[in-house]
């Protein structure tokens, strides 16, 4: 949802990571939605029983040996055919307790083979505002898959060319026992599409994401064999990578990892080498029109080399926005959740013709969005650059350190990323203008999340495979908006300090592993010392709703109703005629709370005065004035009248 208001003010909805774009779209839509009705959930009921028993953790959390799936990649880019000729040595180390008679490979680019693939049917050929060009498709073909030591060919004889996941049976004698490793010699060809859904080519610009055959994840007793869906991202093990990237010498390159030298070849190409440890993916970009600016920054006690790759056409005056946002994100997130573990981070700003490549996270590399120049520097008041930069960098923690399954439990990474974005933004700007700050037009990023949530995802479960949501809008609203508000509600409910400490414990416990929502719940319960099933079962796993309202208030008595089905502990603030205030706590277990003021001097009653219940659908009926003055509304009327008069005068030409 992060995308409607933004559309008005930025003139272009461009946040690739659904949030901003969806907000813009929703705000546009709401003009035609006013007649829509939502089934009332106002029933006084007991809390919903747990939808299902809490799943068990797969393994005992602890220090993991990180390198499960490691790759030595060689890629030759052909700018004429837009193809990558690739070879790789892939090492898979079986750290599971099971013997594996087969492996599975992910062939993501095949989603773009034509308009009939499963991915394309699900997306109707459109993704974040860009359309698939069937004349410029993408695909990946495997030319060789051999066991490296014996040279034995294990490439299946028959492969569905449109499949995004491939089963590779191993010879019976070569099944991978626990603790053993398998080393593969692989060759393939990747055709990059016209820039679409994070990857591709636009002119001589190249963004290569999900461009090589990737090992699937074996977790909790099974391979992740799910095909790639339109409303889904990725899931991978960690490993050590090297990349030798061969491109024309005029190209400026960037990639996951640390630069490890270049070699100029006699054929007019240059081989750029990169390496990285403990990463779950490698992406690269190349373009002759990049300018590169590097800067070391200090973040949470560490030094990180920031490398900005931006179009030469982008004003250098905009660079600082990216650097400042990146430094603040690395510093704050490192302080809260553990330091950024890698020495370098590459910030890629694709050109506007390659919009579809922006707004995506890869290990040690994020793709961002180019700011729209506006007169008098007004574009700085639209914090799209900051929001996208911080959001993508937040993904460096989840899923790129804590590798949750982005397809099955997308809220764990997207909800966290937007929650973290709200926190960092609140450190940089006043909270009422963390998203928009144009004179009297001020909007907080929290308000953007609330907007999406209110319209689309109240009562929507968070723990749900991405492809099972009714629509892309429902998916994105749930995992981004409800997900981030869920984290923020938990923080405000249990207390900021306790919550951050518990989250830090979650990261320490699950870094380089694959936790689930249940694991998060356990970590938070352990970290806060509180039982949180009352929250997770109805609001995260289930379809519970939070809703309170002050139904009546007189000088002697106030009545508060719980009309949602989740009993949420809440504070109630009472203000008396003499200005005295008092707070009482209500556990919300009954359908109603009556408060008596024997002195007859009650002036105002307010439920949830700290806005902790951000999952409440209607926060506007949480308070009442006992004897309301007409003056505030008259002042609003006076303001509105002046605005209307100005509009009337401005509406007549000449």
């Amino acid at each position, binding site marked *: 949802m992060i995308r409607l208001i933004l559309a008005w003010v930025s003139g272009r909805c461009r946040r690739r990571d659904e949030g901003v774009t969806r907000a813009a779209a929703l705000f546009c839509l709401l003009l035609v939605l006013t007649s829509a009705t939502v089934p009332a959930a106002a029933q006084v009921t007991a809390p919903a029983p747990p939808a299902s028993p809490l799943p068990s953790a797969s393994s005992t959390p602890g220090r993991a040996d990180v390198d499960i799936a490691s790759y030595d990649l060689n890629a030759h880019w052909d700018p004429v055919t837009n193809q990558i000729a690739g070879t790789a040595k892939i090492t898979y180390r079986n750290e599971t307790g099971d013997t594996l008679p087969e492996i599975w490979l992910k062939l993501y680019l095949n989603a773009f083979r034509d308009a009939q693939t499963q991915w394309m049917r699900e997306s109707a050929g459109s993704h974040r505002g860009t359309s698939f060009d069937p004349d410029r498709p993408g695909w990946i073909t495997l030319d060789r898959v051999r066991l490296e030591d014996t040279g034995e060919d294990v490439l299946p004889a028959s492969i569905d060319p449109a499949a995004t996941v491939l089963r590779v049976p191993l010879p019976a004698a070569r099944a991978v026992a626990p603790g053993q490793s398998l080393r593969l010699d692989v060759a393939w060809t990747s055709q990059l599409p016209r820039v679409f859904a994070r990857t591709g080519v636009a002119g001589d610009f190249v963004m290569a994401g999900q461009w090589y055959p990737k090992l699937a994840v074996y977790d909790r007793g099974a391979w992740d064999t799910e095909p790639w869906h339109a409303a889904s991202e990725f899931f991978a093990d960690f490993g050590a990578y090297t990349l030798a990237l061969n491109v024309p010498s005029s190209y400026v390159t960037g990639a996951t990892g640390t630069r490890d030298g270049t070699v100029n070849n006699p054929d007019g190409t240059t081989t750029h080498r990169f390496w990285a440890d403990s990463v779950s993916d490698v992406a690269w970009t190349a373009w002759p029109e990049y300018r590169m600016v590097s800067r070391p920054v200090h973040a949470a006690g560490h030094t990180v080399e920031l490398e900005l790759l931006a179009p030469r056409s982008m004003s250098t005056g905009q660079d600082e926005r990216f650097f400042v946002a990146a430094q603040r994100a690395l510093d704050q997130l490192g302080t809260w959740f553990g330091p950024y573990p890698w020495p370098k981070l590459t910030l890629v700003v694709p050109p506007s013709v390659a919009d579809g490549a922006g707004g995506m996270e890869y290990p040690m590399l994020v793709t961002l969005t180019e700011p729209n120049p506006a007169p008098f520097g007004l574009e700085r008041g639209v914090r799209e650059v900051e929001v996208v930069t911080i959001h993508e960098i937040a993904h460096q923690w989840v899923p790129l350190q804590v590798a949750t399954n982005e397809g099955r439990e997308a809220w764990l990474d997207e909800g966290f990323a937007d929650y973290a974005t709200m926190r960092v933004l609140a450190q940089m700007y006043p909270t009422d203008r963390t998203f928009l700050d144009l004179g009297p037009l001020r909007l907080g990023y929290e308000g953007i999340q609330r907007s999406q949530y209110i319209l689309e995802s109240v009562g929507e479960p968070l723990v749900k495979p991405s492809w099972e949501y009714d629509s892309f809008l429902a998916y994105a609203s749930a995992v981004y908006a409800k997900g981030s508000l869920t984290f923020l509600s938990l923080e405000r409910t249990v207390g900021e300090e306790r919550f951050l400490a518990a989250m830090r414990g979650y990261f320490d416990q699950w870094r380089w592993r694959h936790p689930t929502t249940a694991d998060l719940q356990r970590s938070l319960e352990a970290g806060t010392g509180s039982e949180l099933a009352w929250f997770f079962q109805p609001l995260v796993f289930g379809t519970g709703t939070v809703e309170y309202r002050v139904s009546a208030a007189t000088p002697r008595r106030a009545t508060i109703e719980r009309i949602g089905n989740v009993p949420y502990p809440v504070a109630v603030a009472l203000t008396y005629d003499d200005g005295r205030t008092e707070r009482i706590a209500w556990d919300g277990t009954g359908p109603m709370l009556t408060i008596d003021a024997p002195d007859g001097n009650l002036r105002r009653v307010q439920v949830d005065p700290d806005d902790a219940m951000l999952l409440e659908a209607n926060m506007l009926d949480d308070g009442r004035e006992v004897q309301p003055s007409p003056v505030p*509304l008259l002042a609003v009327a006076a303001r509105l009248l002046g605005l209307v008069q100005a509009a009337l005068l401005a509406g007549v030409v000449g």
Partner: protein
Amino acid sequence: MTVRGLIGRTLRLALPLYLTTLLLGAIPTTVAMYGLWLLAGDRPWRGDLLGPGWLNLAVEVLLTAVRGGGSAGTALIWLALSLLLPLALLAQVVAYSFLAGGILEALRGDALRGPLAGEALRRDASRTPMPGAAGTGAGVLSGSPTAARAAFLRACRRWFWPSFRLSLLGASIFLTALVAGSVVAALVGGLVGPNVAFALQFIMQALVWGWIEATRAVMVADGQRSVGTALWRGLRVAARPLSLVAWLLLALPSSALLLAAIMPPAPSDAASVGGLLTVLLYGQGVAFLGAWTRVVRLTVALRLVAGARVRQPGGAAAFSGG
């Protein structure tokens, strides 16, 4: 007429224009506020709608209303903004088209009397009026307030239809220029930078607006009821260097007033009577200044028309050849 007298005169002429905005603006405002009262009558947040975070609250209110379905308050606000406000705007076009003729006739009469009067206007006033034209403006120059009022209304009626046609055609021209200017600004923005692109668009729109205003003045000054002919003559007036400078300079206060209206300062305490009065006086002050600025612009347009004639001996006859 002295400058002080002219200011007084334009202030008086701005009054009916201001009152029409007040009257027409009050209709959607009243309905919307009644709807808001139904939604927020005793809710503590209602005073925050004037605070610095008003947009955050407005979005929350709007989306909560959308999700909650069709309450009476929501329906009234929707009615006010989607139907009554556009209707008020259309009514304002009609009202301005009606008043502009009377205002221009009155200003033309002043011009004939005062030291700032253009020679061409004096000559023109001595000629026989063209059919349907205002003639000498003798009515509005007469000393009796009652007679002046009657003459003002006669002039309003006389020029209503040509003025209304000009309003509609002028709006089309302006919107076309706005779209074209936006496209051009977007195209050249990458080359010249956003500030220059914005300035170019601003200048273009200011000049087009001035052209339409000059046309309105030409109609009354020349007794020209044909909008097409008046537009052509107005273009020749507006294309003069002095006119270009005048329209650009006048665009600045007009834009400043518009900005002042849509970016009002937040009151220190909207819940107090003092806060209410501050908001009310600010809004109405800006609205009256806006109306007065329109009258001042018509005054300038009239004098630019007169100036064009002085430079072209033969006055109106010189235009007719065009």
